């Protein structure tokens, strides 16, 4: 029975790490602008799909990976420059709608430029399962988990310690004041899109060997990543990680112990319950507005 | 008979006692001022009295009824209104509509009537507009009637808050720094307004750092420091109190002139 539990846990952690990784991508743009970037999942897709296609074109994996990340980052920067920047000052909701448009657009481009099929990517370090007390986990899952841990840590450092990270936060909290203290808010926004595209593409590449990749994998990963980010408290690095793990584990335990048909519903019910008691997510900052 | 009675009221925020076992009473029909250093707890006190915050301890009574913990809209219905130090304007409306929200409790709020436009909604709305416009004239904002609130200068927004608060026909009106950002001439106008409001039977509680305004209109002054009562009395008593001078007034302001 313990082995079973452990297996559920490991499965949950694997999936949860994927959600957490995507959730981190959401945090960056959110932290710079309070915009939820619905195209975040598309960054994930672009990372994986580009790598697959570059490898199919004969490039060795490391080169393909680097190029894929570059491609995604460039697209992220273009998105900011061409679509977000011109609409600055439009308010958060219109900006979110723009990112929805962008996600449809990017998916459309991917299915024309690449294809509509699923693709497998070879795992980084083989696919011999690792046995832990009767449960198994794939080496690639460890990569995802490690990737998430490293990224989470870096982001935490970035926003809690680095000056530019704080300037980003400041820009989201009060763009006017940020400009008045000399923050180049355009650059901040541009960087936030570049960074989260980077993070998204890395996530996509780490995940592709496990989940496969196709032009529309971004939808589900984006949605679950969003849930994880909210659960943890939007914009909070550790929150994104923990949120991702909780959603993943809830799904796995739900599927294992309750009902596989309702496992997603179980995860959502948990999220709702958490929000009812902690309206700003697990780690979210409480509102500080005073009257 | 007291209008407002505060008993052992406390509120703490993460270890800081913003209001610390405060007792005081406010008699009806006068102008009371609450002054004190920045962070003394004046705004927090307003927030406790008007139900924005729940107290950590203590009780608030209004016209003899215990109103501790009641939601602000319930208090509004009982005749309590206020303005905000951090302006709370409906920026998605015109100035006039802002004031019309203040009339909410006096209007027909039945859903059916609203949906089907029954019971002379149109006529009542026109009358509400007139009433709101009248209030804006009263506070000197007739120039801004149909201006979008987000296009108004800061000073005018202060007046708008006052008009909106008056619209609900309060018996107790709490004003949080109504003269902040106004020049002496405008402040004098506000002083005149406050007197008029008080004369019309509304009890006014005023929080303000402009000593000329405070000393000019108050019947009674309460001084807070670190959430506690530092002094209480008439204008002259408070002005002469060395503790108040040391903690708050400083050397120049005690004379009642403005600024340095």
């Amino acid at each position, binding site marked *: 029975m313990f082995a079973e539990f452990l297996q559920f846990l490991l499965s949950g952690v694997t999936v949860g790490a994927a959600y957490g990784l995507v959730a981190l991508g959401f945090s960056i743009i959110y932290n710079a602008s309070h915009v939820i970037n619905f195209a975040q999942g598309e960054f994930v897709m672009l990372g994986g799909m580009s790598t697959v296609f570059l490898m199919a074109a004969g490039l060795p994996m490391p080169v393909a990976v680097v190029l894929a990340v570059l491609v995604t980052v460039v697209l992220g920067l273009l998105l900011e420059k061409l679509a977000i920047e011109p609409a600055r000052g439009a308010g958060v909701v219109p900006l979110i709608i723009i990112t929805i448009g962008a996600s449809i657009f990017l998916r459309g481009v991917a*299915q024309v430029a690449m294809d509509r099929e699923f693709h497998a990517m070879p795992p980084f370090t083989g696919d011999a399962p690792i046995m832990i007390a009767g449960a198994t986990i794939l080496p690639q899952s460890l990569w995802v988990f490690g990737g998430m841990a490293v990224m989470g840590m870096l982001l935490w450092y970035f926003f809690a310690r680095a000056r530019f990270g704080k300037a980003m936060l400041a820009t989201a909290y009060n763009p006017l004041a940020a400009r008045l203290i000399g923050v180049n808010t355009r650059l901040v926004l541009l960087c936030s899109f570049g960074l989260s595209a980077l993070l998204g593409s890395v996530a996509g590449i780490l995940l592709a060997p496990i989940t496969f990749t196709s032009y529309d994998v971004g939808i589900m990963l984006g949605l679950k990543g969003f849930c994880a980010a909210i659960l943890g408290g939007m914009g909070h690095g550790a929150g994104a990680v923990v949120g991702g793990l909780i959603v993943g584990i809830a799904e796995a335990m739900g599927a294992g112990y309750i009902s596989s048909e309702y496992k997603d519903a179980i995860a959502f019910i948990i999220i709702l319950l958490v929000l009812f008691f902690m309206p700003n997510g697990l780690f979210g900052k409480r509102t500080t507005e005073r009257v | 008979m007291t209008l407002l009675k505060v008993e052992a009221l406390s509120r703490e925020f993460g270890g800081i006692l913003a209001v610390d076992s405060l007792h005081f009473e406010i008699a009806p029909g006068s102008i009371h001022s609450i002054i004190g250093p920045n962070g003394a707890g004046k705004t927090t006190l307003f927030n406790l009295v008007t139900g924005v915050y729940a107290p950590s301890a203590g009780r608030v009574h209004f016209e003899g009824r215990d109103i501790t913990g009641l*939601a602000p809209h319930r208090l509004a219905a009982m005749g309590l209104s206020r303005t905000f130090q951090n302006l709370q304007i409906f920026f998605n409306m015109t100035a006039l509509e802002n004031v019309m929200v203040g009339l909410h409790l006096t209007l027909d709020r039945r859903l059916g009537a609203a949906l089907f436009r029954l019971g002379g909604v149109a006529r009542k709305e026109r009358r509400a507009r007139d009433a709101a416009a009248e209030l804006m004239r009263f506070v000197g904002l007739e120039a801004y009637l149909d201006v979008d609130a987000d296009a108004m200068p800061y000073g005018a927004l202060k007046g708008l808050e006052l008009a909106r608060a008056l619209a609900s026909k309060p018996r107790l009106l709490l004003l949080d720094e109504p003269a902040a950002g106004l020049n002496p001439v405008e402040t004098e106008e506000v002083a005149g307004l406050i007197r008029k409001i008080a004369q019309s039977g509304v009890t006014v509680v005023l929080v303000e750092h402009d000593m000329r305004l405070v000393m000019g209109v108050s019947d009674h002054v309460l001084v807070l420091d670190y959430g506690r009562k530092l002094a209480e009395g008439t204008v002259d008593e408070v002005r002469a109190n060395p503790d108040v001078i040391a903690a708050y007034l400083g050397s120049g302001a005690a004379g009642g002139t403005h600024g340095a």
Partner: protein
Amino acid sequence: MSQALKRKLADPRTGGLLGLAAVIAVLPLFLPNNFYYDVAIGAGLSAIVCVGLNLLIGYAGQISLGHAGFVGLGAYSSAVLTVEFGWHPLAAMTAGALGVGILAFLVARPILRLRGHYLAMATLGLGIIISIVVNTEAEYTGGPDGMTVPSLMFFGRELYGEAVWYWIVGAALLFTVWLSLNLIASPVGRALRAVHGSEPAAEIAGVDTAHYKVLVFVISAVIASLAGSLGAHYAGFVSPANVGFFRSIELVTMVVLGGMASTYGAVVGAAILTVLPQLLTGLEDYEHIAFGLILMLTVIFMPRGLVPSFFTIARNRLASAGAPPP
């Protein structure tokens, strides 16, 4: 024309409603066949939902990413109660609306305590849970394959065919818009906007913010449910595909595109996002690219939405045309 009449016509309620009625009345002249009717009906049904959703999002400032769930519940109530339990369609529709109203009422208080993205998340979760339920309870709902729904009977007559439904949906839309305009122009509507503007200020003005948030949530959910029921009877079929998250997002997009806090904006947004994909089908593979692009460009150039932006432009034109030469 008398001044009073002119003013009445310029008033969004009278003038706009007459305009909308005229459009609905004249449109069939340009609809060559049932397909076009079908698109128009689809636009009308979406518009009804969006007018309700706009009360919630545009006026009261509370986002919902779960409204497709309410539409779906309405549709499935009509389907399941008539097919499985043999209810009269009108009774089923009413029961559905009631049920959705009660559900919305029950969840509204805890959900609407949340703000911004957290509220978006909670409503999204609610919508997804609803869609999982209709997907899973195949015994009643037919699961992913959906189920057929009998026609709506009205005084013993079967309401069938696009031409008939066009007028039903048109009338329903007109009625919904009328209700929405009435609401907005009343103290209740102003209270909703006040909730959006500043909750503390609304409260101290005597507005029971929690009550109004719940109220508008319930109203918009009930409207969605009724539109869902109508849609189910019109289509004769319900399926879970349109109950999900994407449809919810689409509905919100319609509201924002048309213009938040604009009832006609909601109608225009719904019409455009319904018609546009039909226009783009000729592009085949490039359909999605074009759609995404148009969506982005519209919002970039008209961030406040089509209808408000259009009126601003028109007003500026008028003003500069009427201004004396410098």
